[in-house]
């Protein structure tokens, strides 16, 4: 939705001061390549009948960013080198099924950055990969952040990688942001009970610590977002539930310069 594929029921997506759903078609066509996406599953997100070259060149061709074939060719070669698919001559004639998971994800990243976007939605880009590959893919993403100035919206349930890549973090529960702020601040000092539960569930490779630590266990399953609970959406599973939680949805409040929490525990009466 952030990238304009689905229309929101309410709310706005602002890009450079303009709501992308209110733009004229022509205007939207001009900027849409600045917003890209990297998908979770590199086995699903690449067309099995296209060669790597065509997969990466497709956004260029569709958006008519270059007029000549040689320019496209050179651009694709350059991008393939920067995602370490080397030698590019070798990889560009292959089909996705001839590549490993890590290589496919590199192709997906190449495809996303080939249009030189400002903003990339990365939907758990490393969750399908082996742990040994994750760091190298994440470093690749961070490299583009530093070199090209790309902003990422990194969607994940893995707080460890989130801390590795992120600056700011927002925790969502049942479609609502319950807490947001600087990532270190959030992890060191979680305010919302849900965030606390999430953080206490991160495995720590230290038996001494693990034995002493008390984990916050949540009861039950998240309810269906089609018919969310009344009041605070988290109240049926919250260990600190108060009466007010069942009746009214709390406001989001600023607890500590930019650290936002949406919980009755922190609202002073």
């Amino acid at each position, binding site marked *: 939705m952030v990238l304009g594929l689905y229309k929101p029921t309410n709310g706005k997506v602002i890009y450079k001061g303009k709501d992308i759903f209110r733009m004229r078609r022509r205007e939207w066509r001009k900027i849409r390549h600045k917003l890209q996406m990297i998908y979770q599953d590199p086995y699903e997100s690449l067309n099995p009948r296209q060669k790597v070259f065509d997969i990466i060149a497709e956004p260029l061709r569709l958006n008519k960013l270059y007029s000549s074939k040689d320019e496209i*060719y050179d651009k694709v070669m350059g991008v393939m080198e920067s995602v370490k698919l080397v030698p590019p001559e070798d990889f560009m004639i292959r089909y996705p099924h001839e590549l490993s998971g890590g290589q496919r994800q590199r192709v997906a990243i190449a495809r996303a950055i080939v249009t030189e976007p400002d903003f990339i939605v990365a939907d758990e880009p490393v969750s399908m990969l082996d742990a040994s590959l994750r760091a190298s893919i994440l470093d690749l993403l961070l490299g583009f952040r530093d070199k090209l100035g790309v902003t990422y919206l990194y969607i994940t349930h893995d707080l460890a990688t989130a801390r590795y890549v992120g600056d700011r973090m927002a925790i969502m529960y049942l479609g609502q942001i319950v807490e947001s702020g600087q990532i270190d601040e959030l992890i060191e000092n979680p305010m919302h009970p849900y965030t606390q539960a999430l953080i206490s569930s991160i495995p720590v490779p230290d038996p001494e610590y693990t034995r002493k630590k008390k984990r916050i266990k949540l009861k039950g399953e998240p309810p269906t977002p089609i018919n969310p609970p009344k009041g605070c959406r988290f109240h049926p599973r919250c260990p600190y539930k108060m009466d007010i939680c069942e009746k009214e949805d709390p406001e989001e409040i600023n607890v500590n310069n930019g650290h936002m929490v949406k919980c009755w525990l922190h609202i002073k009466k």
Partner: protein
Amino acid sequence: MTEVSMKNRKKMYGGRWRGVKEFLKVYRKNKLGMIGLILIIIYVFIAIFAPYITPYNPYEKTGKPFIPPSPEHIFGTDELGRDIFSLTIYGTRISLFVGILATLLSAVIGSAVGILSGYFGGLIDDLLMRITDLFLIIPGIPFLIVLSVILGSNIWNIITVIAIISWPSTARLVRSETLSLKSRTFIEAAKLAGATDTYILTRHILVNVLPLISASIILTITRAIILEAGLSFLGLGDPTKISWGTMLYFADRYGAMFSSNPYYIIIPGVALSVLGLAFVFVSYAVDEIVNPRLRTRRLR
């Protein structure tokens, strides 16, 4: 740089037939499939070189009527004194021509309906699928007979009529494949890259359903050839063209079975059955490769 890039571009397109090669490698292991393929190649060869194979012009009287097999006429003659061997050889042409053309026509209609209906969904899907159901539900042979009586006996009409009753199964098949393709993320990725519906349909969906379409083509050809023969046998064929069906029709009418030359019925009948069988063998073999469920069973 430019020269290197040109060389590379050539290499890029060189791998296009790799999929076909892999397919043939698996196919070659299937004995029945190979027998069928060789038979079909022989038939096609016969159809193309018919004038060089036949000893007589099949449209001319070359002897007395109903001569039993003899050195001059290896399968004897028909009621007009025409050479049965030559007639059968020429009949291959019409049978193959009608079978292939009708199948291609039905594949085009079926794929178009299937892809559009699967991709767009909603009202278009409902509309197209109800039409498909309608054609699917109509009993084939009676409908064929009625249609060809109305349209008249002409080879193009026969092709059209056969295509009309064979496209719905292809449409169903293609639609379900399109539905599953549509939900794959690379389609969403293409939309994100700015692809139009037409682009996605042709570049992403069509290429991915193509293997399925070609498998269904082979299945349909068998049916189309038998249907053509059936129609012609009922006297609804094109009387000016020789096909196995029309031969059987005339043989039946003139009581060839009990005449001095029963080969008049046997030879085109055998030719038809063997060709039908050949296509069935091939379609089974292809089905086994294309259909992933059958493939795993075979590997086990």
